[in-house]
Protein backbone atom coordinates (compact mmCIF):
# COMPACT_ATOMS: atom_id res chain seq x y z
CA UNK A 1 0.00 0.00 0.00
CA UNK A 2 1.32 3.45 -0.94
CA UNK A 3 0.66 5.78 1.99
CA UNK A 4 1.61 8.78 -0.16
CA UNK A 5 -1.43 8.08 -2.38
CA UNK A 6 -3.66 8.07 0.69
CA UNK A 7 -2.07 11.33 1.81
CA UNK A 8 -2.84 12.90 -1.61
CA UNK A 9 -6.51 11.99 -1.14
CA UNK A 10 -6.52 13.25 2.44
CA UNK A 11 -4.78 16.54 1.61
CA UNK A 12 -7.09 17.28 -1.32
CA UNK A 13 -10.21 16.42 0.68
CA UNK A 14 -9.05 18.66 3.50
CA UNK A 15 -8.17 21.53 1.21
CA UNK A 16 -11.63 21.27 -0.41
CA UNK A 17 -13.35 21.11 2.99
CA UNK A 18 -11.42 24.12 4.30
CA UNK A 19 -12.50 26.19 1.30
CA UNK A 20 -16.06 25.98 2.63
CA UNK A 21 -16.27 28.62 5.34
CA UNK A 22 -19.09 27.00 7.34
CA UNK A 23 -17.08 23.77 7.53
CA UNK A 24 -13.93 25.61 8.63
CA UNK A 25 -15.60 27.79 11.26
CA UNK A 26 -17.97 24.98 12.27
CA UNK A 27 -14.98 22.79 13.10
CA UNK A 28 -13.29 25.53 15.11
CA UNK A 29 -16.52 26.35 16.95
CA UNK A 30 -17.23 22.69 17.81
CA UNK A 31 -13.67 22.14 18.95
CA UNK A 32 -13.79 25.28 21.08
CA UNK A 33 -16.65 23.90 23.20
CA UNK A 34 -14.35 21.47 25.06
CA UNK A 35 -11.67 23.99 26.09
CA UNK A 36 -14.31 26.62 26.97
CA UNK A 37 -16.08 24.18 29.31
CA UNK A 38 -12.82 22.93 30.82
CA UNK A 39 -11.25 26.38 31.26
CA UNK A 40 -14.52 27.78 32.64
CA UNK A 41 -14.80 24.99 35.21
CA UNK A 42 -11.15 25.28 36.26
CA UNK A 43 -11.43 29.06 36.49
CA UNK A 44 -14.47 28.80 38.70
CA UNK A 45 -12.75 26.31 41.00
CA UNK A 46 -9.43 28.17 41.14
CA UNK A 47 -10.91 31.54 41.97
CA UNK A 48 -13.47 30.24 44.50
CA UNK A 49 -11.36 27.62 46.33
CA UNK A 50 -10.72 28.29 50.05
CA UNK A 51 -7.15 26.96 49.98
CA UNK A 52 -4.64 24.91 47.94
CA UNK A 53 -5.51 21.61 49.69
CA UNK A 54 -9.22 21.94 48.95
CA UNK A 55 -8.44 22.90 45.38
CA UNK A 56 -6.21 19.85 44.90
CA UNK A 57 -8.92 17.49 46.19
CA UNK A 58 -11.59 19.09 44.02
CA UNK A 59 -9.37 19.07 40.93
CA UNK A 60 -8.66 15.35 41.41
CA UNK A 61 -12.40 14.71 41.45
CA UNK A 62 -13.15 16.92 38.48
CA UNK A 63 -10.35 15.71 36.22
CA UNK A 64 -11.82 12.27 35.35
CA UNK A 65 -15.14 13.98 34.66
CA UNK A 66 -13.88 16.83 32.52
CA UNK A 67 -10.87 15.35 30.67
CA UNK A 68 -12.90 13.05 28.41
CA UNK A 69 -14.94 16.09 27.33
CA UNK A 70 -12.04 17.28 25.20
CA UNK A 71 -11.92 13.88 23.48
CA UNK A 72 -15.68 13.69 23.03
CA UNK A 73 -15.83 17.06 21.37
CA UNK A 74 -13.08 16.04 18.92
CA UNK A 75 -15.11 12.97 17.90
CA UNK A 76 -18.02 15.07 16.61
CA UNK A 77 -16.23 16.87 13.73
CA UNK A 78 -14.47 13.60 12.86
CA UNK A 79 -17.79 11.85 12.47
CA UNK A 80 -19.26 14.62 10.33
CA UNK A 81 -16.29 14.79 7.93
CA UNK A 82 -16.08 10.99 7.67
CA UNK A 83 -19.82 10.70 7.06
CA UNK A 84 -19.38 12.92 4.01
CA UNK A 85 -16.34 11.02 2.69
CA UNK A 86 -17.78 8.71 0.03
CA UNK A 87 -21.42 9.76 -0.19
CA UNK A 88 -20.23 13.35 -0.67
CA UNK A 89 -18.19 12.22 -3.66
CA UNK A 90 -21.26 10.43 -4.97
CA UNK A 91 -23.49 13.48 -4.57
CA UNK A 92 -21.09 15.71 -6.48
CA UNK A 93 -20.57 12.98 -9.13
CA UNK A 94 -16.84 12.66 -8.53
CA UNK A 95 -16.98 9.14 -7.14
CA UNK A 96 -16.63 7.38 -10.49
CA UNK A 97 -13.46 9.14 -11.66
CA UNK A 98 -11.95 8.65 -8.21
CA UNK A 99 -12.76 4.93 -8.26
CA UNK A 100 -11.29 4.69 -11.77
CA UNK A 101 -7.84 5.76 -10.50
CA UNK A 102 -5.32 3.04 -9.60
CA UNK A 103 -5.95 3.55 -5.89
CA UNK A 104 -6.42 0.24 -4.10
CA UNK A 105 -9.36 -0.14 -1.73
CA UNK A 106 -6.96 0.15 1.22
CA UNK A 107 -5.31 3.33 -0.13
CA UNK A 108 -8.64 4.98 -0.78
CA UNK A 109 -10.08 4.03 2.61
CA UNK A 110 -6.94 5.14 4.42
CA UNK A 111 -7.02 8.45 2.56
CA UNK A 112 -10.63 9.00 3.52
CA UNK A 113 -10.02 8.04 7.16
CA UNK A 114 -7.00 10.37 7.31
CA UNK A 115 -8.96 13.26 5.83
CA UNK A 116 -11.23 13.22 8.86
CA UNK A 117 -8.62 12.01 11.38
CA UNK A 118 -6.11 14.80 10.70
CA UNK A 119 -8.41 17.76 11.52
CA UNK A 120 -9.83 15.89 14.52
CA UNK A 121 -6.44 15.12 16.00
CA UNK A 122 -5.27 18.70 15.34
CA UNK A 123 -8.36 19.99 17.13
CA UNK A 124 -7.86 17.54 20.00
CA UNK A 125 -4.20 18.46 20.47
CA UNK A 126 -5.03 22.15 20.13
CA UNK A 127 -7.77 21.82 22.78
CA UNK A 128 -5.40 20.03 25.16
CA UNK A 129 -2.60 22.59 24.72
CA UNK A 130 -4.95 25.57 25.13
CA UNK A 131 -6.60 24.05 28.20
CA UNK A 132 -3.27 23.18 29.85
CA UNK A 133 -1.81 26.64 29.21
CA UNK A 134 -4.96 28.35 30.48
CA UNK A 135 -5.05 26.11 33.60
CA UNK A 136 -1.41 26.80 34.49
CA UNK A 137 -1.93 30.53 33.91
CA UNK A 138 -5.02 30.63 36.15
CA UNK A 139 -3.27 28.72 38.96
CA UNK A 140 -0.32 31.12 38.82
CA UNK A 141 -2.55 34.19 38.74
CA UNK A 142 -4.48 32.91 41.76
CA UNK A 143 -1.20 32.29 43.61
CA UNK A 144 -1.30 28.46 43.65
CA UNK A 145 1.44 26.14 42.49
CA UNK A 146 0.76 25.19 38.82
CA UNK A 147 -1.19 22.05 38.06
CA UNK A 148 -2.03 20.12 34.91
CA UNK A 149 -5.62 19.88 33.77
CA UNK A 150 -6.24 17.39 32.25
CA UNK A 151 -3.83 15.66 34.65
CA UNK A 152 -1.41 12.88 33.66
CA UNK A 153 -4.08 10.16 33.70
CA UNK A 154 -6.37 12.34 31.61
CA UNK A 155 -3.57 13.12 29.15
CA UNK A 156 -2.71 9.44 28.74
CA UNK A 157 -6.36 8.71 28.06
CA UNK A 158 -6.77 11.56 25.59
CA UNK A 159 -3.53 10.82 23.70
CA UNK A 160 -4.04 7.06 23.40
CA UNK A 161 -7.71 6.12 23.57
CA UNK A 162 -8.73 9.46 22.01
CA UNK A 163 -7.08 8.90 18.60
CA UNK A 164 -8.12 5.22 18.59
CA UNK A 165 -11.77 6.08 19.21
CA UNK A 166 -11.60 8.77 16.51
CA UNK A 167 -10.13 6.24 14.05
CA UNK A 168 -12.79 3.66 14.98
CA UNK A 169 -15.52 6.24 14.57
CA UNK A 170 -14.12 7.29 11.20
CA UNK A 171 -13.93 3.71 9.98
CA UNK A 172 -17.57 3.10 10.82
CA UNK A 173 -18.66 6.39 9.30
CA UNK A 174 -16.80 5.66 6.06
CA UNK A 175 -18.37 2.23 5.93
CA UNK A 176 -21.79 3.89 6.29
CA UNK A 177 -20.85 6.62 3.83
CA UNK A 178 -20.22 4.00 1.15
CA UNK A 179 -23.58 2.38 1.70
CA UNK A 180 -26.04 5.26 1.75
CA UNK A 181 -27.09 7.31 -1.23
CA UNK A 182 -27.46 10.78 0.33
CA UNK A 183 -25.28 12.89 2.62
CA UNK A 184 -28.13 13.64 5.03
CA UNK A 185 -28.68 9.90 5.57
CA UNK A 186 -25.01 9.58 6.52
CA UNK A 187 -25.32 12.53 8.93
CA UNK A 188 -28.36 10.98 10.58
CA UNK A 189 -26.50 7.73 11.15
CA UNK A 190 -23.40 9.60 12.33
CA UNK A 191 -25.43 11.34 15.04
CA UNK A 192 -26.51 7.99 16.46
CA UNK A 193 -23.03 6.45 16.13
CA UNK A 194 -21.28 9.27 17.99
CA UNK A 195 -23.26 8.42 21.12
CA UNK A 196 -22.10 4.79 21.01
CA UNK A 197 -18.45 5.76 20.54
CA UNK A 198 -18.59 8.23 23.42
CA UNK A 199 -19.24 5.44 25.92
CA UNK A 200 -15.64 4.16 26.25
CA UNK A 201 -14.42 7.72 26.84
CA UNK A 202 -16.70 7.95 29.86
CA UNK A 203 -15.23 4.90 31.60
CA UNK A 204 -12.96 6.98 33.89
CA UNK A 205 -16.14 7.92 35.76
CA UNK A 206 -16.05 4.47 37.37
CA UNK A 207 -12.97 5.58 39.32
CA UNK A 208 -15.18 7.80 41.47
CA UNK A 209 -16.76 6.19 44.48
CA UNK A 210 -20.31 6.92 45.62
CA UNK A 211 -19.13 9.93 47.64
CA UNK A 212 -17.32 11.42 44.63
CA UNK A 213 -13.89 10.62 46.07
CA UNK A 214 -11.17 9.52 43.67
CA UNK A 215 -9.40 6.18 43.77
CA UNK A 216 -6.00 6.66 42.01
CA UNK A 217 -5.59 2.92 41.37
CA UNK A 218 -9.02 2.73 39.79
CA UNK A 219 -8.38 5.68 37.51
CA UNK A 220 -5.30 4.04 35.96
CA UNK A 221 -7.18 0.77 35.71
CA UNK A 222 -10.09 2.48 33.93
CA UNK A 223 -7.60 4.20 31.59
CA UNK A 224 -6.08 0.85 30.62
CA UNK A 225 -9.49 -0.72 30.08
CA UNK A 226 -10.57 2.27 27.98
CA UNK A 227 -7.42 2.03 25.83
CA UNK A 228 -7.98 -1.70 25.34
CA UNK A 229 -11.62 -1.19 24.38
CA UNK A 230 -10.64 1.62 22.00
CA UNK A 231 -7.95 -0.60 20.40
CA UNK A 232 -10.40 -3.46 19.88
CA UNK A 233 -12.99 -1.05 18.53
CA UNK A 234 -10.49 0.38 16.05
CA UNK A 235 -9.28 -3.03 14.83
CA UNK A 236 -12.82 -4.38 14.45
CA UNK A 237 -14.25 -1.30 12.75
CA UNK A 238 -11.29 -0.91 10.36
CA UNK A 239 -11.47 -4.62 9.41
CA UNK A 240 -15.20 -4.23 8.90
CA UNK A 241 -14.83 -1.07 6.79
CA UNK A 242 -12.18 -2.72 4.62
CA UNK A 243 -13.99 -6.04 4.17
CA UNK A 244 -17.30 -4.37 3.35
CA UNK A 245 -15.84 -1.82 0.92
CA UNK A 246 -17.60 -2.61 -2.34
CA UNK A 247 -17.03 -0.54 -5.48
CA UNK A 248 -19.77 -2.38 -7.34
CA UNK A 249 -22.34 -1.51 -4.69
CA UNK A 250 -21.23 2.13 -4.49
CA UNK A 251 -21.41 2.60 -8.25
CA UNK A 252 -24.73 0.79 -8.51
CA UNK A 253 -26.16 3.23 -5.95
CA UNK A 254 -25.23 6.20 -8.18
Amino acid at each position, binding site marked *: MALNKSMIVAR*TDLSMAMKVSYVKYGLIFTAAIGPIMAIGTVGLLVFTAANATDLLVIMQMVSPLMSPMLGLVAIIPASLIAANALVGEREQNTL*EPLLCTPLTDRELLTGKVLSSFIPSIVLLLGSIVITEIATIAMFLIAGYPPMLFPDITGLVLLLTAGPLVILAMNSVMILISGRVSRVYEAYQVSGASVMIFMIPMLLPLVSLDSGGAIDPAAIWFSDIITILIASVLFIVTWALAFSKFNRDRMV*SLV
Partner: protein
Amino acid sequence: MDEVVISGLTKNFGDLVAVDHMELNIPGGTIFGLLGPNGAGKSTTTRLLSTLLRPTDGTAVVCEFDIIEDPVRVREITGVLPEEGNHTVYPSLTAYENLVYFGKLYSVPEEELPERIEELLTFMGLWDRKDDKAGELSTGNRQRLALCRAMLHRPRVLLLDEPTSALDPIAAKRVRDLILNLSRQYGQTFFINSHNLPEVQRVCNRIAIIDEGKILLEGNTQELREKLLAKQEFRIRIVGDIEKASSIAKSMDFVQEVKEEVDSIIVTIEDPTTNNSALMQSLLFAGIKIVEFAEEEATLEDLYLDVVKEGDV
Protein backbone atom coordinates in the same frame (compact mmCIF):
# COMPACT_ATOMS: atom_id res chain seq x y z
CA MET B 1 -2.80 -7.77 -31.17
CA ASP B 2 -6.13 -7.34 -29.39
CA GLU B 3 -5.98 -4.82 -26.56
CA VAL B 4 -9.50 -5.42 -25.32
CA VAL B 5 -10.84 -8.97 -25.27
CA ILE B 6 -14.33 -9.39 -23.88
CA SER B 7 -15.42 -12.98 -23.22
CA GLY B 8 -18.94 -13.87 -22.19
CA LEU B 9 -19.19 -10.63 -20.21
CA THR B 10 -22.47 -10.49 -18.31
CA LYS B 11 -23.82 -8.07 -15.74
CA ASN B 12 -27.13 -8.49 -13.98
CA PHE B 13 -28.80 -5.97 -11.69
CA GLY B 14 -31.33 -8.21 -9.95
CA ASP B 15 -33.53 -9.55 -12.72
CA LEU B 16 -32.30 -7.01 -15.25
CA VAL B 17 -29.63 -8.28 -17.63
CA ALA B 18 -27.68 -5.13 -18.48
CA VAL B 19 -24.91 -6.88 -20.44
CA ASP B 20 -25.64 -10.29 -21.85
CA HIS B 21 -22.75 -12.66 -22.69
CA MET B 22 -20.89 -10.04 -24.68
CA GLU B 23 -18.05 -11.18 -26.92
CA LEU B 24 -15.77 -8.57 -28.50
CA ASN B 25 -12.16 -8.31 -29.62
CA ILE B 26 -10.71 -4.86 -30.18
CA PRO B 27 -7.26 -4.63 -31.78
CA GLY B 28 -4.73 -2.11 -30.49
CA GLY B 29 -4.97 1.36 -32.02
CA THR B 30 -8.63 0.90 -32.89
CA ILE B 31 -11.13 3.68 -32.38
CA PHE B 32 -14.09 1.57 -31.42
CA GLY B 33 -17.61 2.94 -31.25
CA LEU B 34 -20.36 1.27 -29.24
CA LEU B 35 -23.74 2.44 -30.43
CA GLY B 36 -27.08 1.76 -28.89
CA PRO B 37 -30.29 3.29 -27.57
CA ASN B 38 -30.70 4.41 -23.95
CA GLY B 39 -30.52 1.51 -21.53
CA ALA B 40 -28.87 -0.75 -24.10
CA GLY B 41 -25.94 -1.54 -21.80
CA LYS B 42 -23.28 0.84 -23.19
CA SER B 43 -22.40 2.59 -19.93
CA THR B 44 -22.52 -0.66 -17.97
CA THR B 45 -20.01 -2.13 -20.42
CA THR B 46 -17.70 0.87 -19.89
CA ARG B 47 -18.07 0.55 -16.12
CA LEU B 48 -17.23 -3.15 -16.30
CA LEU B 49 -14.14 -2.45 -18.41
CA SER B 50 -13.02 0.29 -16.02
CA THR B 51 -13.44 -2.16 -13.07
CA LEU B 52 -16.09 0.00 -11.42
CA LEU B 53 -18.51 -2.91 -11.65
CA ARG B 54 -17.76 -6.59 -11.19
CA PRO B 55 -19.15 -8.92 -13.85
CA THR B 56 -21.84 -11.41 -12.89
CA ASP B 57 -20.27 -13.81 -15.37
CA GLY B 58 -17.50 -13.83 -17.96
CA THR B 59 -14.62 -11.41 -17.98
CA ALA B 60 -12.58 -9.00 -20.07
CA VAL B 61 -8.87 -8.54 -20.57
CA VAL B 62 -7.54 -5.02 -21.14
CA CYS B 63 -3.93 -4.89 -22.37
CA GLU B 64 -3.34 -8.38 -21.02
CA PHE B 65 -4.75 -7.58 -17.58
CA ASP B 66 -7.91 -9.27 -16.43
CA ILE B 67 -10.54 -6.90 -15.02
CA ILE B 68 -11.30 -9.33 -12.19
CA GLU B 69 -7.78 -10.55 -11.39
CA ASP B 70 -5.80 -7.31 -11.93
CA PRO B 71 -8.21 -4.39 -11.48
CA VAL B 72 -5.49 -1.98 -10.25
CA ARG B 73 -3.31 -2.63 -13.34
CA VAL B 74 -6.36 -2.17 -15.57
CA ARG B 75 -7.08 1.17 -13.92
CA GLU B 76 -3.45 2.25 -14.39
CA ILE B 77 -3.57 1.75 -18.16
CA THR B 78 -7.05 3.04 -18.83
CA GLY B 79 -8.37 6.58 -18.90
CA VAL B 80 -12.05 7.02 -18.27
CA LEU B 81 -14.52 9.74 -19.13
CA PRO B 82 -17.66 8.76 -17.23
CA GLU B 83 -21.21 9.36 -18.37
CA GLU B 84 -22.09 13.07 -18.06
CA GLY B 85 -18.38 13.75 -17.68
CA ASN B 86 -18.93 17.50 -17.28
CA HIS B 87 -20.43 16.85 -13.83
CA THR B 88 -17.52 14.71 -12.67
CA VAL B 89 -14.90 17.39 -11.96
CA TYR B 90 -14.35 18.77 -8.45
CA PRO B 91 -16.25 22.07 -8.51
CA SER B 92 -14.34 23.71 -5.65
CA LEU B 93 -10.92 22.99 -7.17
CA THR B 94 -9.54 25.01 -10.06
CA ALA B 95 -9.14 23.41 -13.47
CA TYR B 96 -5.40 23.15 -12.81
CA GLU B 97 -5.84 21.68 -9.32
CA ASN B 98 -8.26 19.06 -10.66
CA LEU B 99 -5.59 17.84 -13.06
CA VAL B 100 -2.78 18.00 -10.49
CA TYR B 101 -4.86 15.85 -8.13
CA PHE B 102 -5.53 13.16 -10.71
CA GLY B 103 -2.01 13.39 -12.14
CA LYS B 104 -0.66 12.49 -8.71
CA LEU B 105 -3.18 9.68 -8.21
CA TYR B 106 -2.14 8.24 -11.60
CA SER B 107 1.55 8.61 -10.62
CA VAL B 108 2.41 10.95 -13.48
CA PRO B 109 6.09 11.89 -12.85
CA GLU B 110 6.13 15.13 -10.85
CA GLU B 111 8.57 16.86 -13.21
CA GLU B 112 6.36 16.09 -16.24
CA LEU B 113 3.04 16.97 -14.66
CA PRO B 114 3.03 20.78 -15.21
CA GLU B 115 4.10 20.37 -18.82
CA ARG B 116 1.44 17.75 -19.58
CA ILE B 117 -1.26 19.83 -17.91
CA GLU B 118 -0.29 22.91 -19.89
CA GLU B 119 -0.20 20.91 -23.13
CA LEU B 120 -3.65 19.42 -22.59
CA LEU B 121 -5.30 22.57 -21.28
CA THR B 122 -3.85 24.57 -24.16
CA PHE B 123 -5.01 22.03 -26.71
CA MET B 124 -8.51 22.06 -25.25
CA GLY B 125 -8.55 25.86 -25.19
CA LEU B 126 -8.69 25.99 -21.38
CA TRP B 127 -5.25 27.33 -20.48
CA ASP B 128 -6.62 30.83 -19.89
CA ARG B 129 -9.19 29.36 -17.49
CA LYS B 130 -6.74 27.19 -15.54
CA ASP B 131 -7.17 29.18 -12.32
CA ASP B 132 -10.96 29.26 -12.48
CA LYS B 133 -12.85 26.95 -10.19
CA ALA B 134 -14.20 24.02 -12.19
CA GLY B 135 -17.67 24.73 -10.83
CA GLU B 136 -17.59 28.15 -12.50
CA LEU B 137 -16.75 26.77 -15.95
CA SER B 138 -19.42 26.25 -18.59
CA THR B 139 -20.77 22.76 -19.24
CA GLY B 140 -18.65 22.41 -22.36
CA ASN B 141 -15.48 23.55 -20.59
CA ARG B 142 -16.07 21.13 -17.74
CA GLN B 143 -16.47 18.34 -20.29
CA ARG B 144 -13.16 19.34 -21.86
CA LEU B 145 -11.54 19.37 -18.44
CA ALA B 146 -12.88 15.88 -17.74
CA LEU B 147 -11.39 14.77 -21.05
CA CYS B 148 -8.02 16.28 -20.10
CA ARG B 149 -8.20 14.31 -16.87
CA ALA B 150 -8.87 11.06 -18.75
CA MET B 151 -5.90 11.63 -21.05
CA LEU B 152 -3.42 13.08 -18.55
CA HIS B 153 -1.58 9.84 -17.72
CA ARG B 154 -1.41 8.83 -21.41
CA PRO B 155 -3.40 5.63 -20.97
CA ARG B 156 -3.16 2.83 -23.52
CA VAL B 157 -6.93 2.46 -23.60
CA LEU B 158 -9.40 5.32 -23.29
CA LEU B 159 -12.97 4.54 -22.28
CA LEU B 160 -15.08 7.53 -23.25
CA ASP B 161 -18.80 7.69 -22.50
CA GLU B 162 -20.43 10.24 -24.81
CA PRO B 163 -17.25 12.35 -25.11
CA THR B 164 -18.77 15.21 -27.08
CA SER B 165 -22.26 15.21 -25.64
CA ALA B 166 -21.98 18.61 -23.95
CA LEU B 167 -19.70 20.30 -26.45
CA ASP B 168 -20.37 22.94 -29.07
CA PRO B 169 -19.52 21.97 -32.67
CA ILE B 170 -16.04 23.57 -32.56
CA ALA B 171 -15.09 21.89 -29.30
CA ALA B 172 -16.57 18.62 -30.52
CA LYS B 173 -14.40 18.82 -33.63
CA ARG B 174 -11.34 19.49 -31.45
CA VAL B 175 -12.08 16.38 -29.44
CA ARG B 176 -12.55 14.29 -32.57
CA ASP B 177 -9.25 15.63 -33.93
CA LEU B 178 -7.55 14.87 -30.63
CA ILE B 179 -8.84 11.30 -30.68
CA LEU B 180 -7.61 10.82 -34.26
CA ASN B 181 -4.21 12.40 -33.46
CA LEU B 182 -3.67 10.31 -30.34
CA SER B 183 -4.65 7.18 -32.17
CA ARG B 184 -2.20 7.99 -35.00
CA GLN B 185 0.69 9.25 -32.85
CA TYR B 186 0.60 6.89 -29.89
CA GLY B 187 -1.54 4.02 -31.16
CA GLN B 188 -3.94 4.46 -28.25
CA THR B 189 -7.10 2.40 -28.31
CA PHE B 190 -10.40 4.19 -27.86
CA PHE B 191 -13.65 2.64 -26.67
CA ILE B 192 -16.33 5.24 -27.29
CA ASN B 193 -19.97 5.06 -26.27
CA SER B 194 -22.13 7.35 -28.28
CA HIS B 195 -25.59 8.17 -29.49
CA ASN B 196 -24.07 10.51 -31.99
CA LEU B 197 -24.02 8.49 -35.19
CA PRO B 198 -22.39 11.04 -37.48
CA GLU B 199 -19.61 11.46 -34.94
CA VAL B 200 -19.02 7.73 -34.69
CA GLN B 201 -19.02 7.54 -38.48
CA ARG B 202 -16.36 10.27 -38.66
CA VAL B 203 -14.06 8.99 -35.95
CA CYS B 204 -14.44 5.28 -35.38
CA ASN B 205 -12.87 2.62 -37.54
CA ARG B 206 -14.73 -0.21 -35.85
CA ILE B 207 -18.30 -0.19 -34.66
CA ALA B 208 -20.71 -2.38 -32.74
CA ILE B 209 -24.41 -1.90 -32.18
CA ILE B 210 -25.78 -3.02 -28.83
CA ASP B 211 -29.32 -3.38 -27.60
CA GLU B 212 -30.65 -5.03 -24.44
CA GLY B 213 -27.09 -5.93 -23.49
CA LYS B 214 -26.41 -7.90 -26.66
CA ILE B 215 -24.15 -7.03 -29.56
CA LEU B 216 -26.41 -7.05 -32.60
CA LEU B 217 -23.84 -6.14 -35.20
CA GLU B 218 -20.10 -5.58 -35.24
CA GLY B 219 -17.56 -4.81 -37.89
CA ASN B 220 -15.16 -2.25 -39.24
CA THR B 221 -16.63 0.89 -40.68
CA GLN B 222 -15.75 -0.14 -44.24
CA GLU B 223 -17.60 -3.45 -43.93
CA LEU B 224 -20.63 -1.69 -42.56
CA ARG B 225 -20.52 0.88 -45.35
CA GLU B 226 -20.55 -1.95 -47.89
CA LYS B 227 -23.63 -3.38 -46.20
CA LEU B 228 -25.23 0.00 -46.47
CA LEU B 229 -24.43 0.36 -50.14
CA ALA B 230 -26.36 -2.84 -50.89
CA LYS B 231 -29.48 -0.81 -50.17
CA GLN B 232 -29.80 1.73 -52.96
CA GLU B 233 -31.95 4.73 -52.37
CA PHE B 234 -32.46 7.77 -54.58
CA ARG B 235 -33.63 11.22 -53.65
CA ILE B 236 -35.91 12.84 -56.24
CA ARG B 237 -36.40 16.52 -55.46
CA ILE B 238 -39.35 17.94 -57.33
CA VAL B 239 -41.39 21.06 -57.81
CA GLY B 240 -45.04 20.14 -57.59
CA ASP B 241 -47.34 17.63 -55.98
CA ILE B 242 -45.34 15.30 -53.69
CA GLU B 243 -48.30 12.96 -53.16
CA LYS B 244 -48.81 12.58 -56.90
CA ALA B 245 -45.12 11.82 -57.44
CA SER B 246 -45.21 9.34 -54.59
CA SER B 247 -48.22 7.47 -55.97
CA ILE B 248 -46.64 7.27 -59.44
CA ALA B 249 -43.46 5.82 -57.94
CA LYS B 250 -45.42 3.33 -55.81
CA SER B 251 -47.29 2.11 -58.87
CA MET B 252 -44.10 0.92 -60.52
CA ASP B 253 -43.13 -2.76 -60.01
CA PHE B 254 -39.42 -2.15 -59.51
CA VAL B 255 -39.89 0.46 -56.74
CA GLN B 256 -39.58 -1.29 -53.37
CA GLU B 257 -40.21 1.59 -50.98
CA VAL B 258 -41.18 5.27 -51.15
CA LYS B 259 -40.71 7.85 -48.38
CA GLU B 260 -42.10 11.35 -48.64
CA GLU B 261 -40.31 14.48 -47.47
CA VAL B 262 -41.19 18.19 -47.78
CA ASP B 263 -39.77 18.69 -51.27
CA SER B 264 -38.62 15.19 -52.19
CA ILE B 265 -39.46 11.54 -52.37
CA ILE B 266 -36.91 8.92 -51.39
CA VAL B 267 -37.28 5.73 -53.43
CA THR B 268 -35.63 2.34 -53.09
CA ILE B 269 -35.24 0.89 -56.56
CA GLU B 270 -34.52 -2.63 -57.69
CA ASP B 271 -31.83 -2.71 -60.40
CA PRO B 272 -31.47 1.08 -60.60
CA THR B 273 -29.19 1.04 -63.66
CA THR B 274 -32.08 -0.25 -65.76
CA ASN B 275 -35.05 1.25 -63.99
CA ASN B 276 -34.03 4.79 -62.98
CA SER B 277 -34.73 6.24 -66.43
CA ALA B 278 -38.18 4.59 -66.57
CA LEU B 279 -39.17 6.16 -63.28
CA MET B 280 -37.84 9.55 -64.35
CA GLN B 281 -39.82 9.40 -67.62
CA SER B 282 -43.06 8.47 -65.84
CA LEU B 283 -42.70 11.44 -63.50
CA LEU B 284 -41.91 13.85 -66.34
CA PHE B 285 -44.88 12.58 -68.43
CA ALA B 286 -47.11 13.26 -65.42
CA GLY B 287 -45.97 16.91 -65.48
CA ILE B 288 -43.75 16.74 -62.42
CA LYS B 289 -40.65 18.93 -62.59
CA ILE B 290 -37.58 17.12 -61.36
CA VAL B 291 -34.96 19.41 -59.77
CA GLU B 292 -32.61 16.66 -58.61
CA PHE B 293 -32.31 12.91 -59.06
CA ALA B 294 -29.39 11.68 -56.95
CA GLU B 295 -28.25 8.62 -55.15
CA GLU B 296 -28.97 9.01 -51.45
CA GLU B 297 -25.88 8.47 -49.39
CA ALA B 298 -26.63 5.72 -46.94
CA THR B 299 -25.64 6.57 -43.36
CA LEU B 300 -24.94 4.52 -40.30
CA GLU B 301 -28.19 5.83 -38.93
CA ASP B 302 -30.09 3.74 -41.47
CA LEU B 303 -28.18 0.65 -40.52
CA TYR B 304 -28.47 1.45 -36.82
CA LEU B 305 -32.23 1.92 -37.05
CA ASP B 306 -32.61 -1.26 -39.08
CA VAL B 307 -30.56 -3.31 -36.67
CA VAL B 308 -32.14 -1.95 -33.50
CA LYS B 309 -35.63 -2.36 -35.03
CA GLU B 310 -34.87 -5.98 -35.93
CA GLY B 311 -33.61 -6.53 -32.40
CA ASP B 312 -36.94 -5.30 -31.04
CA VAL B 313 -38.96 -7.79 -33.06
